[in-house]
């Protein structure tokens, strides 16, 4: 019988929150893609793909640590109307900031070095993607001191 990795309930809860965030991001990129123009679409598809991969690996992590993965919602409430390309870009920033917040929380919720490394990599990736989208949204400052909110 395989020994399950030791996991605090806080750790599993943080992973579940990260999984829920990734579910929401994948749904959200569907909306972003619907408003993206031809020039934007490759970057949206790439981001969508990366987050699908992260959702799947996070789902597997939750199982590995003994949790029952939270399912995706049928639909999510948009934070603001998304009628055009600029709003779609703002939504993309919002999605990445949401992912960053969840992963930053996960970094602090575990003492497990490898899990923390996974969370930190996800946080950094979300922060970098948010900055890429913001660079297309002048005059929005492209960087923030604490991705995902804070300090």
């Amino acid at each position: 019988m395989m020994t399950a990795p030791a996991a605090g309930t806080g750790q599993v809860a943080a992973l579940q929150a990260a999984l829920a965030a990734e579910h929401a991001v994948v749904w959200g990129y569907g909306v972003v893609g619907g408003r993206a123009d031809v020039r934007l679409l490759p970057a949206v598809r790439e981001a969508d793909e990366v987050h699908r991969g992260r959702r799947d690996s996070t789902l597997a992590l939750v199982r590995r640590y003994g949790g029952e993965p939270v399912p995706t919602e049928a639909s999510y409430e948009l934070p603001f109307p998304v009628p055009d390309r600029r709003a779609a870009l703002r939504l993309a920033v919002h999605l990445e900031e949401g992912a960053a917040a969840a992963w930053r929380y996960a970094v602090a919720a575990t003492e497990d070095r490898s899990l923390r490394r996974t969370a930190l990599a996800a946080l950094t990736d979300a922060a970098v993607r948010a900055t890429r989208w913001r660079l297309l949204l002048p005059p929005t400052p492209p960087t923030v001191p604490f991705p995902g909110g804070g300090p």
Partner: protein
Amino acid sequence: MAVLPRRRVLTAGAAGLAAAAVAGCTGRVGGAAGTSSPTAPPPPDPLLAELTDEARLLAAYDATTARHPGLGRRLAGPRADHAAHAAALAQVLDAAGSHSPTPSGSATPPAARVPGTPVAALAALRAAERAAARARSAAALVAPAERAGLLAGVAASEATHDLVLR
């Protein structure tokens, strides 16, 4: 007495913060030398090294802007981020009552010379940012939980700076 420099760090504005942090450390070096203790001092708070590094980055941005004023607008964002990082680190250190008992400040290298062309200056800052992100990531992996989130956020922010320095 050692509290004074720390307090100065906290009350200083973002611009003065870096100088105060470095000056504070240097000041303590002199003080520590005069009062040799028979017992070994506790190891310095590891966060002090991160704060010193942020101060060094701020100095590098200021030196670059002084040498290449045309880059000022582009550098303003990352510089403001570093000022916020330094302020947050100083606050955590202050809350922990951590005062440098060792001359860690003396290890602070002087701000590196700024390359003569804007392109080379940007490349130097990009290299400094990559090193900073690596250092903060490494610190986040071993930090206690209550500090790991802050360090991870700083690391992620520094990783984004590369994109605006191209």
